[in-house]
């Protein structure tokens, strides 16, 4: 193995994703090459420093405890932000959101989204008022209001830094936010038919939380 070949494989080597044969070949090379061993040591030091950096943008206030208290006990839904890294990203709400997006396409309904929904779904400046938002007193009104405040603050911060983000990242975020907003609109419609549904109320709150997490993630990317 040459030094160039070794350099190309160092990332997978330190990440533990190199195949066994190449791993053995690289180890053999490193044993006899001071320059590549130095590269490996520098890379491991870099990764150690990176892993010591703060992992999450700290929200000004985590809304979920208050929301959970208002909603009461919950049975079938797993909170989407629990668990390590992305394993907690998708399960309940984004899967539901993705399923709704697929359903929109499958049913040919994408062109029937109202202007209000489209405006609410447009990131990052579109959150003037959530689509289907019905200002009635009660737990979910309070939840909607608090999440609207949280997302508005994040959207404003993001708007100021959007030029710092790569275009493909902005497109991906806008796509995710649109899916989430469409899911929120569908959940609100379902809640209008069944306002006391525990699972629907939890799904609405956890989908809002998903949106906040998405915005926190991209806002953090724009700051680092």
């Amino acid at each position, binding site marked *: 193995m040459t030094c160039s070949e070794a350099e190309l494989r160092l990332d997978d080597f330190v990440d533990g994703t190199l195949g066994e044969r190449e791993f053995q070949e690289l180890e053999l090379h490193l044993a006899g090459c001071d320059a590549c061993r130095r590269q490996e040591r*520098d890379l491991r030091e870099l990764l150690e420093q990176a892993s010591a950096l703060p992992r999450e943008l700290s929200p000004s206030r985590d809304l979920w405890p208050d929301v959970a208290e208002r909603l009461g006990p919950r049975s079938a839904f797993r909170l989407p932000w629990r668990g390590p*890294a992305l394993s907690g990203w998708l399960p309940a709400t984004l899967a539901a959101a993705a399923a709704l997006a697929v359903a929109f396409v499958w049913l040919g309904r994408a062109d029937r989204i109202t202007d209000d929904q489209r405006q609410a779904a447009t990131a990052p400046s579109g959150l003037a008022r959530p689509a289907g938002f019905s200002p009635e007193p009660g737990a979910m009104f309070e939840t909607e209001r608090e999440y609207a405040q949280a997302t508005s603050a994040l959207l404003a911060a993001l708007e100021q830094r959007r030029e710092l983000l790569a275009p493909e990242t902005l497109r*991906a975020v806008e796509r995710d936010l649109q899916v989430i907003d469409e899911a929120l609109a569908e959940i609100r419609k379902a809640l209008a038919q069944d306002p006391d549904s525990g699972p629907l109320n939890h799904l609405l709150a956890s989908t809002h939380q998903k949106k906040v997490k998405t915005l926190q993630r991209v806002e953090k990317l724009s700051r680092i």
Partner: protein
Amino acid sequence: MDLEKAMQTLPPGARAVFVLHDVEGYKHEEIAELIGVATGTSKAQLHRARRLLREVLVR
């Protein structure tokens, strides 16, 4: 130069992948989905980011 300052010198795409992979702990497949690139692009951007950062930090 410390790492956080060095990260600011990276191109946006490489910086995003480095933060997601090496700071936040996301996998390449997840990063590809999150930022709308191919998995191979995520790996290439990470390799680039790590190489550039090592160059900056050892100066």
